[in-house]
């Protein structure tokens, strides 16, 4: 199987392209996604290829076009509204949480809502408190939604294609920094990645590091450094929060005895809290140390670079957490 190197953004674009070609019911919505090609270039060229009927520039009306997308999904098409900065998703909350997520259930199964909402996440670009947040945890908390958080071009393409065939509402979170900074091999042949399957990005014996999105790369870098100290870290990427592959996470921690969970969302009541609870229960008798969480500091994300970087998980903080997990646990 032959592969080529694509950036994260290119992989996403390729998924959209292929699915637009495959299914005429798929329509993209978003601000500046058409003629401009998307502020992050993720829809570049698609407007030219598929025309204004399939790639639609919307007014600045997140609630409006996401709400419209719910109706479009309920009447037989598969809309893909984009939220340019994940922070703006708050404007569309009612349509996502009270309408999209619940329509099937409230109608007793009469209707399906195949809508794929693409939103961005992640800070680190001095974009300030209202343009840097990562809200995947919120939607994992809503019954009726599915939440996908890919970390590599390979994962992004396979998962997005699956989302575009999924008959349920999907929140698909894309990290902004990764768009052009992360490259990876992507097969030429068609492939899909199912939801609910975690990926072991690096095998190890001494500690389990669970990470999402861009933090997967930070965790892998930390694992490299830890290897110099003779510590073998296993890095696992859940890839989807709903559905969650609990078994892979639990099995790994049963093997290593210790877990460090890394996420760019805020720490309190966030993704790391849920994963820690899942592991505490599933791997209880095999835990040799308390579970560590490394997440964004519980402060609004600052603008000034040294301040901003102080709030986002980095290699050093992950390594410190691993050291805490391993303290006194190995024969000297």
């Amino acid at each position: 199987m032959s592969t080529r190197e694509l950036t994260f953004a290119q992989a996403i674009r390729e998924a959209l392209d292929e699915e637009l070609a495959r299914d005429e019911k798929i329509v993209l919505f978003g601000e500046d996604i058409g003629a401009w090609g998307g502020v992050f270039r993720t829809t570049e060229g698609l407007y030219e290829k598929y025309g204004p009927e399939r790639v639609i520039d919307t007014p600045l009306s997140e609630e409006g076009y996401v709400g419209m997308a719910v109706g479009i999904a309920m009447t037989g098409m598969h809309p893909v509204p984009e939220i340019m900065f994940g922070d703006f998703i708050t404007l569309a909350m009612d349509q996502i949480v009270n309408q999209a997520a619940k329509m099937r259930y409230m109608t007793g199964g009469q209707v399906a809502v195949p809508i794929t909402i693409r939103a961005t996440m992640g800070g680190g670009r001095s974009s300030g408190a209202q343009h840097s947040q990562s809200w995947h945890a919120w939607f994992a908390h809503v019954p009726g939604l599915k939440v996908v958080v890919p970390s590599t071009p390979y994962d992004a393409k396979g998962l997005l294609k699956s989302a575009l065939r999924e008959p349920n509402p999907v929140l698909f979170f894309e990290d902004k920094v990764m768009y052009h900074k992360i490259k990876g091999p992507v097969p030429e042949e068609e492939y899909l990645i199912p939801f609910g399957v975690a990926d072991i990005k690096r095998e190890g014996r001494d500690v389990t590091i669970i990470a999402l999105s861009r933090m997967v790369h930070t965790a892998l870098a930390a694992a490299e450094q830890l290897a110099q100290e003779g510590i073998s870290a296993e890095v696992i990427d859940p890839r989807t929060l709903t559905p969650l592959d609990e078994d892979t996470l639990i099995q790994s921690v049963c093997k290593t005895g210790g877990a460090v969970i890394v996420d760019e969302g805020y720490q309190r009541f966030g993704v790391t809290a849920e994963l820690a609870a899942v592991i505490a229960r599933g791997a209880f008798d095999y835990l040799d140390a308390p579970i560590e969480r490394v997440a964004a500091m519980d402060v609004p994300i600052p603008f000034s670079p040294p301040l901003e970087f102080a709030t986002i998980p980095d290699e050093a903080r992950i390594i410190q957490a691993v050291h805490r997990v391993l303290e006194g646990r190995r024969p000297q």
Partner: protein
Amino acid sequence: MNATQPNSEIVMPRMGLTMESGRFIKWLKQVGETVRSGEPLFEIETDKSVVEVEALADGILSQILAQPGETYAVGAVLGYLSLPGGTSPAQAAIQPESSTPAKSQAQPSGTASFATPAKPKASPAARRLARQLGVDLAQVVGSGPQGRIVAWNVQTAAQSLPLPAPASTRVSPVAQRLAADLGVDLRQVQGSGPGGSITRQDVEIAYQRQQAKTEPLSPPSPLDTEGIVEPLSPVQRRMAERMTQSFSNAPHFYLQAEVDARNLVALRQSLLQPLESRYGVHLTFTDLLIYFTARLLPRHPLLMAQWSEKGLVKFTQVNLGIAVDTEQGLFVPVLREADKLGLAEISRQRANLAERARQGKLLPRDYEQGVFTLTNLGALRIDVFQAILNPPQAAILAVGRIKERPMVENQQVISAPMFTLSLSADHRVLDGGKAARFLSELVEWLENPALSMA
């Protein structure tokens, strides 16, 4: 439960190191049927295969609880065997190692509340391993943060464990847990299970007795001039029997030697602070004595041997018993492989064992298989004393207090700290010469600690 018609618990046995539960297949006897010890009684399925489990005593299958197809944890009660006859006093369960009778009251207070056993801090993984490997967490030193016991500590401890105790001192796991929960000293418990093993009911009865002991046994009569008879507890009776047996059977002889403690005192002084700050332990003279005695014994292995009709039983593992004085009496917990422990570790273990002894939380494992005993009454102002041998050991070292005394050196009278060692020995195993050579070398080491490095 009727004490004169004891029932023996039939429990799910542990058939392998990692077995935690087994699936019950079927009973091979019916209720009311007579069962002989060693006869197959029921079948279970483990990971590996279907296994027949035999009865551990003669009796009648009186009650069955286990159902075919159900899974039960190791130690779970599957049914009862009623044993013929009443209690047999000769089948006392445990061999306490103390050389003086313990007081009859195990608990200092007579209140109905029982203390929650203080659990050592250990990770869930460590606890699981401890269960599986049969390691007592109270014996394990933790290397994790704040002294938390972690998995590899348990693994290490498991590797140095002696073989399980012989069947006559068996305590069922259920009984052990219950005793820990109720704060019952297992040495106060009369075992009624097969081979004198202690069952859950035994622990319950002991607990009831403990509670009942708050009331006087009989009101004193003002006209009573004959003294009040307090019936012996099983442990008291056993102690009396064993001491009598030891004293009458083992021909004791005694050697005494004075020790110039100047260098020892200086050594302790120099180590006191560093050990405190680096290891968090408070170094005592007993610790030092343990250190040197333990390292010397392998050079005089006969001091660790024991008399038996068939011949001398030789031991190489230096399990040193340390007499601990508590409110409840004299206990002798054992430091295992004491010759392999560093001074800090000795101090830590000794303090740990002494504390648990004072709290009445020693378990059989804590005082089994000692081969030599050290007893120090110096803190109680005793200058010298001859201890009775701790059966079946062949030697016991009694230590008196350190006191400034006049002595002659270079024909000068000077004052120096001194103390007296008194070694009691079993003349069936040791003669004067062998005992003397041990004692004199020990004195040399104590007077000149660096010699121990040679």
